[in-house]
Every structure is written in structure tokens, then in C-alpha cells.
């Protein structure tokens, strides 16, 4: 099937009235959770996952994907008007976006964020369309050694690219792998770490874990700190106020293009996603600018680049999941959960076996991006008001969402206790600077990693050389070794060479 035929098939699915409605619901919910600090896209998707039982798989995926990329749009609104990033991917937008708003250019900042997001999201989808089919074909050659090497590379990347110290991130990844072993052994069905509990034999559920780590922990963090009233910039009135001036368009155009490319490339890497891509895009714009001193003081490129990058990254984040069946970030891990819930295993065969679902999901993101542009521009004032929801009301809102989300998995109050346990863990982990993303990704990838490791060793009669001698797994393993060795080499080189001044990011 040619790409045009595939797109036609996809649009015939995504433009069905029911799918359009779910797409709209998804992007609307995504924008709302992006606007509200605390309740992120991961917790919202986890909350709604049980609700999708009764929906068709394609509709469920379209809605859940809409929540994710919609939250990126919403996050920029609060970042610009309140200097509060609704999503972690909007942190860099705060710096120049809020400064622009303070100088009376809130409309231009919001406008360029929305247009930049739309352009980058669309370019990211074009990249996804071009790259996904050949990658899915390549993935058909993957056997257990390749999958083991890929999961190992993924976990190394997520630990090295994420926030915080690398040993802490690796320790969290190891803890995630350990938690993934709770339950029955996937090969011999022997109970492991269940302490005699029948409930634990099925393993730890992903949804209560995510609700706890990303939802309840935020409740506890909000309850712990005394909220300080922020200074709000005035929201622009009327659509005309959202249109950037010609000079601003000229300044932002290159940043949008470069941000889109960086976001797309970084978004494919496990663990990197929108947050890292926005940092990289911002840093690049600042370094290549003739006037880097403008950054942090209301440079429109400082809004355009990170916002474009995080939206392009949301599109490319789907590539590993749809082609290899491996999630690149926590939200993709939940999307994997959504596929599994409906009895579908994403991966190299998805495109061949379910083309209407594959292309329907991708084309729905075109439609959703357009909806977001139409939705966000006129409703920015309303979203800005919502973002000012006081913490005393925000805390119960997130708490109840977490409780319902956790209970809804199995209709079992035990899952609420699991969620609470992970909430307390997440609260302390955040306070002590331990990144949570490696833990969740390792938990999701762990069973695949174990199965592929054991199968590889059985195939090779115990020879670890199987991972190095097969071309694809050899390359993947080489990349992992390079990833681990690079900082060590750099550190050694740094000890020998005199220190050079590095320009600060902000």
C-alpha cells in the first residue's frame, strides 16, 4: 500500500464521527490537564484506561493519544501566563514566555506557542509516517537477543538522559526491574516475591503504580508545601491579540523549524521525550543566536523552539511503540497498556495486521492538532482562569482522580493501597532527587527483558557472545557500551585538559 493510500485509509477511520468525538474529548481533556499543575497526562491516561474497556480499540487509542499531545498545548498556557509549567516539557517556555507576557506580549507568546506546536506536531507526524513503516519491516528480523539488547539500551538511555544523577537513575531502573519480577515467573510460572499473597501472583498493576507515582505524589507534595500566590500576567483578549507581528514571525520561523527537527530526533530516544527535547532546542537557539543575552528576557525564539520541540517529540515518541512494541516514555508505557487491554500487541506486525488502526491513530493526530489550534486560540482566556484554581481545590481534584483510577483497574480497594504506597514512595523520591521515569519504564520493559535474556541464553547454550555476534544486537549493545563509556572518557579527558568555560544555559 502506498503512503497516500495508507493516509486515505487512516483518514477514513479518524474522520468517522465517533472517532472525531473521542479525538476532541482527548485533546480537550489533555489541554485541561496540561493547564492544571499537578494532574499530568500520565495520571489522566491511567485514570481513563479502565474506562476504555467498553470503547473500540481505535477510538480508545485516539482519545488517549489526544490527551498526551493536548497536554503539551495546555502546559504552555500556564507557563506563559503564570510562570507555572503545567507539564515538565513546558519548563523552558516559562523563561521567555512569562517575560513576554509581563511586557504585554502574552498574546504573541501564546500565539507563537500554538502555531509552533501545530507546525512541529504536523512535521513530526510526517516524520512518523515516513519512518515507521521501514522501521517496522526491520523489526521483523528481531529475535530475543535483539529485544534484550534494545531494552538494555533503552534503560541505559533513560537513565543517562533523564533528570538527576546517573547512579540514582540506574538504581531506580533496577528497582523497576525488580518490581517487574513480582508475580509468576513468565517461563516456569513459579511465584516470586508474592509473600503468599494471591493478589500479588498477578504482579503489580501498572495503573495504580502510575497513579501513585505521578498523581498521589503530587497531592502529597502540594500538601507538604505552603502554596504561594503567584503573579499572574493578563490573558490576551480577542484573536487579533494572539497573532504575532511580522518581525516576531521572522524571528521565530527558524526556531520552529530547528525545534521540530530536534524534538523529532530526541523524542524517539527512550526516556528523552518532550522535556529533554525542549531543553536541547532552547540551548541550541541560545547558542546560535547573535544576541544570546535576550534569552530569559522575552525572546520569542525562547518560546518557539521548546514548544515546537516538545510537540514534535510527542509524535516521534510513538515510533518505538508502534514499530517495536517498546514504550519510549511513561505515557507510551500506558499506551502499551491500552493496546494490551484490548488484546493487541503493538510491534512490527501491527502495521500489517491492523493497518486501519495504525493509520487511523496517526491521522487522528493531524486532526487533533488542528482541533487544538482552533480550540486553544479562542479559549485561552478560559484556560488561564482555570489555571488559577487554588491549591485547596486542586488537591482534592487530583486525589479523587487517583482513587478512582486505582480502584477502577480491578474494582479492588487493595489497588488504592498500592497506589498510596507508590504515592509515598514518589513523594520522597521527588524530594530526594530520584527520577521516577526509569522506574516505570524498567517495570514495563522488565518482563520482556527477562524473557528475551533467558530465551537467548537457552538458544546459545549459555554463550553470552550471542548478543555481540548478531549484527543488530551487536550494534545496539555497542551503543549501550558507548553510552556508558562516554561520560567516563569525558571525565578522564577533563582531568587531563584545562577546564574551559561553558556558557550558561539560562
Amino acid at each position, binding site marked *: 500500500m502506498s503512503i497516500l493510500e495508507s493516509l486515505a485509509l487512516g483518514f477514513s477511520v479518524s474522520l468517522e464521527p465517533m472517532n472525531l468525538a473521542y479525538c476532541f474529548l482527548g485533546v480537550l481533556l489533555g489541554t485541561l490537564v496540561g493547564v492544571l499543575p499537578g494532574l499530568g497526562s500520565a495520571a489522566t491516561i491511567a485514570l481513563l484506561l479502565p474506562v476504555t474497556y467498553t470503547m473500540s480499540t481505535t477510538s480508545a487509542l485516539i482519545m488517549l493519544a489526544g490527551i498526551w499531545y493536548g497536554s503539551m498545548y495546555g502546559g504552555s498556557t500556564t507557563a506563559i501566563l503564570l510562570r507555572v509549567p503545567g507539564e515538565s516539557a513546558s519548563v523552558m517556555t516559562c523563561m521567555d514566555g512569562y517575560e513576554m507576557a509581563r511586557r504585554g506580549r502574552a498574546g504573541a507568546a501564546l500565539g507563537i506557542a500554538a502555531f509552533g506546536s501545530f507546525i512541529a506536531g504536523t512535521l513530526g507526524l510526517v516524520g512518523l509516517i515516513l519512518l515507521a513503516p521501514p522501521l517496522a519491516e526491520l523489526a521483523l528480523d528481531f529475535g530475543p537477543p535483539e529485544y534484550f539488547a534494545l531494552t538494555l539500551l533503552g534503560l541505559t538511555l533513560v537513565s543517562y538522559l533523564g533528570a538527576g544523577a546517573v547512579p540514582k537513575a540506574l538504581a531506580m531502573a533496577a528497582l523497576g526491574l525488580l518490581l517487574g519480577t513480582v508475580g509468576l515467573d513468565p517461563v516456569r510460572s513459579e511465584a*516470586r516475591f508474592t509473600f503468599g499473597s494471591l493478589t500479588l501472583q498477578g504482579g503489580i498493576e501498572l495503573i495504580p503504580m502510575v497513579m501513585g507515582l505521578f498523581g498521589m505524589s503530587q497531592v502529597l507534595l502540594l500538601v*507538604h508545601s505552603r502554596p504561594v500566590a503567584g503573579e499572574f500576567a493578563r490573558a490576551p483578549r480577542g484573536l487579533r491579540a494572539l497573532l504575532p507581528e511580522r518581525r516576531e514571525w521572522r524571528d521565530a520561523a527558524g526556531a520552529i523549524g530547528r525545534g521540530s527537527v530536534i524534538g523529532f530526533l530526541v523524542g524517539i530516544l527512550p526516556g528523552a521525550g518532550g522535556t529533554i527535547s525542549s531543553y536541547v532546542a532552547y540551548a541550541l537557539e541560545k547558542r546560535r543566536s547573535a544576541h544570546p543575552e535576550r534569552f530569559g528576557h522575552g525572546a520569542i525564539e525562547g518560546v518557539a523552539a521548546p514548544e515546537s520541540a516538545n510537540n514534535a517529540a510527542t509524535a516521534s515518541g510513538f515510533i518505538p511503540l508502534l514499530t517495536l512494541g517498546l514504550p519510549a516514555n511513561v505515557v507510551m508505557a500506558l499506551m502499551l497498556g491500552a493496546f494490551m487491554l484490548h488484546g493487541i500487541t503493538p510491534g512490527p506486525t501491527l502495521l500489517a495486521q491492523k493497518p486501519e488502526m495504525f493509520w487511523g491513530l496517526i491521522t487522528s493526530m493531524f486532526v487533533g492538532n488542528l482541533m487544538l489550534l482552533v480550540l486553544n486560540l479562542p479559549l485561552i482566556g478560559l484556560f488561564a482562569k482555570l489555571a488559577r484554581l487554588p491549591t485547596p481545590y486542586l488537591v482534592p481534584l487530583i486525589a*479523587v482522580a487517583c482513587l478512582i483510577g486505582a480502584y477502577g483497574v480491578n474494582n479492588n480497594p487493595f489497588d488504592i493501597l498500592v497506589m498510596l504506597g507508590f504515592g509515598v514512595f514518589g513523594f520522597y523520591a521527588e524530594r530526594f532527587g530520584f527520577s521516577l521515569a526509569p522506574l516505570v519504564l524498567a517495570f514495563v520493559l522488565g518482563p520482556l527483558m527477562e524473557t528475551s535474556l533467558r530465551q537467548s541464553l537457552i538458544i546459545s547454550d549459555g554463550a553470552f557472545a550471542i548478543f555481540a555476534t548478531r549484527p543488530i544486537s551487536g550494534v545496539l549493545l555497542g551503543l549501550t557500551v558507548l553510552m556508558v563509556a562516554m561520560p567516563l572518557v569525558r571525565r578522564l579527558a577533563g582531568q587531563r585538559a584545562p577546564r574551559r568555560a561553558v556558557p550558561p544555559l539560562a
Partner: protein
Amino acid sequence: MTQALRGRLPAAVLVGIGLAALYEGSGLSFGSVRQPGSGFYPTLVCVALIVFAGIALANPPRTGRIDGGPSGGHARVWLVVAAVAVYAWALTPAGFLLCTAALLVLLLRGIGGVSWPISLATAAIGSIACYVLFTRLGMPLPTGVLGF
């Protein structure tokens, strides 16, 4: 607790978890490299956890959010934790509406300092709205003593 000790505590806890899991997993069949058993992979993972957490333990953070936070912060946190634990225990016998309304009153009035009338009204409206929305979406929530 001193700042240095506080910085080392989380990594020490992770090392402890790794050691405990290694002990618990020692009862599982390890097998061999040619035929890995149920305990093969968990043992590798436990060793990795102990090693990485050990490195983190040896290099405690110099900076970071490890301060005690605002006064009463931890008391509020543990009050919420206890309330949610009671919520989980009481959910089936008392029902979603009663439990959720009570928890909302605690969070709004007890933690958030919202006035009694607004707390009660928000709790009543919020719990009923959630019940109606999620039961309509096909999620069976416990009815408890109220019977609906």
C-alpha cells in the same frame, strides 16, 4: 537528622531493598547460564540494584530538595496518607459516596482551610458528580450503606 545523613538515607533504603530481595529470592531456583531458572534474573537485578544504590550512597547529593520543608508539612502529608488508607479500608462497607464526601471534607476543610459551608457543598456535589460520571462510563463503584 543531619543533612549528610538525610542525603544518604534514600540510597541506603534502596540498598536495603536490594539485600532483602536477594535474601527472599535465594529460595528460588537459580538454574544455570544454559538453563536459567526463576531466580536467575531477579538475582542479577538485585545485584544491579545494590551496586547502583551503593554508588549513590557513596556519593550523596551536595544540593537538592532535602530540607525539612515548611512547618507541619510532614504532619499534613501523613494525615492525608492515613485518610486515604482509611478510605481504602472503608470503601466497600461504607460506599463510594460517603467515603469520598468525607475525604473531600477533610482535604478541603482540614488541609486546605476552606470554609465549612463551601467544603460541605463541594464535597457533596463533587462525590455525587464523580459517582454519576464514572458509573455512567461503566465503572462499578461500591454502593455501601446508602444502597446506590
